[in-house]
């Protein structure tokens, strides 16, 4: 990709991070850490990878995206708003009574959300069902899902991995946000899920490992995914939880709480500075 394209993606990721902070601040709750670690992925998917149409969010041949780690909805909502599925101002209604932005994604309330998720392990199975159904229907769409690394501890994930490998769902591509932290601490300490890629390959998947904050690596990974035949594809992304907000970075404590006013102001100041830096380039 060109320098300009890379910059545009970085700007989008930065704006997504602002949406995450904005939403979780006004909600006084929510999950900023894992939303920030996946900001580049959300930016890439909705800017370049997904074939979707915000004016026709239920277009049958659109690509599907399932946020299997549904608690990082603030990141998804910011990406959807930037892509034009609903007004940016809606972000401030996150988790409020009457808002279409539920604490976890609701396919029946939010335009652009393809599957209701939130209970870990279930979204990847639904994505498998979508990919299989698309094949049966002759629908050329592709199906994408994002999983957390802690989520891999759910047994159902491996039922789904087996299913996708068994049925050779090559229209399915997942990303795993390996930020290394979960609610109670380090994933490696709570219940190790490593090695990830070796497990996936053993389950019949094609796999690559990238820096989840690097758009060039992301572009190459998605290109490889689209070119892969006869196997589902997984992108294991090494990321930093809380990325982009200094005091949230690599802190398990920012998994599931909203910033207070002082924290909000500091986070927004940092992100505004990053944005200004990117836009000045």
């Amino acid at each position, binding site marked *: 990709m060109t320098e300009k394209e890379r910059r545009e993606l970085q700007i989008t990721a930065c704006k997504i991070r602002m949406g995450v902070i904005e939403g979780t601040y006004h909600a006084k709750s929510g999950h900023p850490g894992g939303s920030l670690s996946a900001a580049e992925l959300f930016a890439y998917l909705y800017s370049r990878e997904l074939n979707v149409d915000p004016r026709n969010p239920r277009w049958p041949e659109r690509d599907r995206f399932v946020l299997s780690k549904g608690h990082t909805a603030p990141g998804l909502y910011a990406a959807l708003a930037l892509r034009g599925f609903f007004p940016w101002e809606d972000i401030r209604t996150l988790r409020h009574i009457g808002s279409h932005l539920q604490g976890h994604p609701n396919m029946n309330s939010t335009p652009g959300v393809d599957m209701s998720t939130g209970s870990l392990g279930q979204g990847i199975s639904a994505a498998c069902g979508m990919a299989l159904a698309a094949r*049966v229907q002759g629908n050329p769409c592709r199906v994408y899902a994002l999983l957390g690394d802690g989520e891999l501890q759910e047994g159902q994930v491996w039922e789904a991995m087996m299913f996708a490998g068994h049925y050779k769902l090559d229209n399915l591509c997942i990303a795993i946000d390996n930020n290394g932290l979960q609610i109670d601490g380090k994933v490696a300490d709570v219940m190790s899920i490593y090695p990830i890629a070796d497990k996936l390959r053993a389950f019949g998947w094609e796999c690559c490992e990238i820096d989840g904050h690097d758009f060039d690596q992301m572009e190459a990974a998605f290109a490889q995914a689209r070119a892969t035949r006869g196997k589902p594809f997984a992108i294991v992304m090494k990321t930093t939880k809380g990325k982009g907000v200094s005091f949230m970075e690599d802190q398990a404590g920012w998994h599931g709480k909203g910033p207070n006013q002082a924290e909000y102001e500091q986070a927004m100041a940092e992100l505004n500075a990053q944005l200004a830096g990117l836009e000045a380039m």
Partner: protein
Amino acid sequence: MSEVKKIATRESYGNALKELGAAHPDIIVFDADLAGSTKTAVFGKAFPDRHFNCGIAEGNMMCVAAGAAAMGMTPFASSFAMFASGRAFEQIRNSIGYPRLNVKICASHAGISVGEDGASHQCCEDFAIMRAIPNMVVMCPADDVEARAMVKAAYEYKGPVYIRLGRSPVPVFDHRPDYSFTIGKGEVLAEGGDVAIIATGLMVYEAVEAAKLLREEGVSARVVNMATIKPLDEELVLKAAAECGRIITCEEHSVIGGLGEAVCALLAEKLPTPVKRIGLNDEFGVSGPAGDLLKKYGLCREHIAEVAKAF
């Protein structure tokens, strides 16, 4: 007891599914290594491209079905009632019920009539579990005619449905040529004014026979087939309560959380009426032949008649 033909409702399900499959290419069927038992294999033989075995992984199967429904297909997902409603409860609750996806969960081998496999497989809690999920329609057919009609009605209905099917052959007793089935509507199979017996599933035939025994003893019992547990046909229950003054519920299910409690809840709020519930009395079953087990736990015409006489 061979005066009527017997067919297990799981057989009816497999046959109905195959029949529907020919006309409706949107039907896709999932099973969890029990296709020969749930009878989805009947569909699978006819339409191998639309039948998918998920292996012994019921939780994944329910969410896979949800994903297929989100793509506009009409999935039927089958396992034994124990594993469909029990193992996969939360998947059904969050990935099917909450998004109101158009998945038909058809669970076989329900109730005590599983027989020899014993308590681990005798699911007598599925009505309770499935009724508690918003958006879920819960049904249980009495015989082959009703089961086939119910599967077709479930296909035509848009939204999540749970159908409870049995392993053991049950009498085919409803031969009316004009038979039709409507979700949420019960039907009066025998008129009577002394007591109303509201039954579901294989207990309906026993209730009909119990009413005959009672008639010989001068007790006029109304028999209601309540094939839809949720939404309950409230009008029919209230009418029976108003006209008979006493209600007996019969189900091959725990007395906790099933038809009996649904009827009691309705009557307590709208028309307090004495009720006796016949079902599993908060206990696990044991291994044995289905027919003997049904008698052991009082799920038979003789016991229904006794309860009615003593009421």
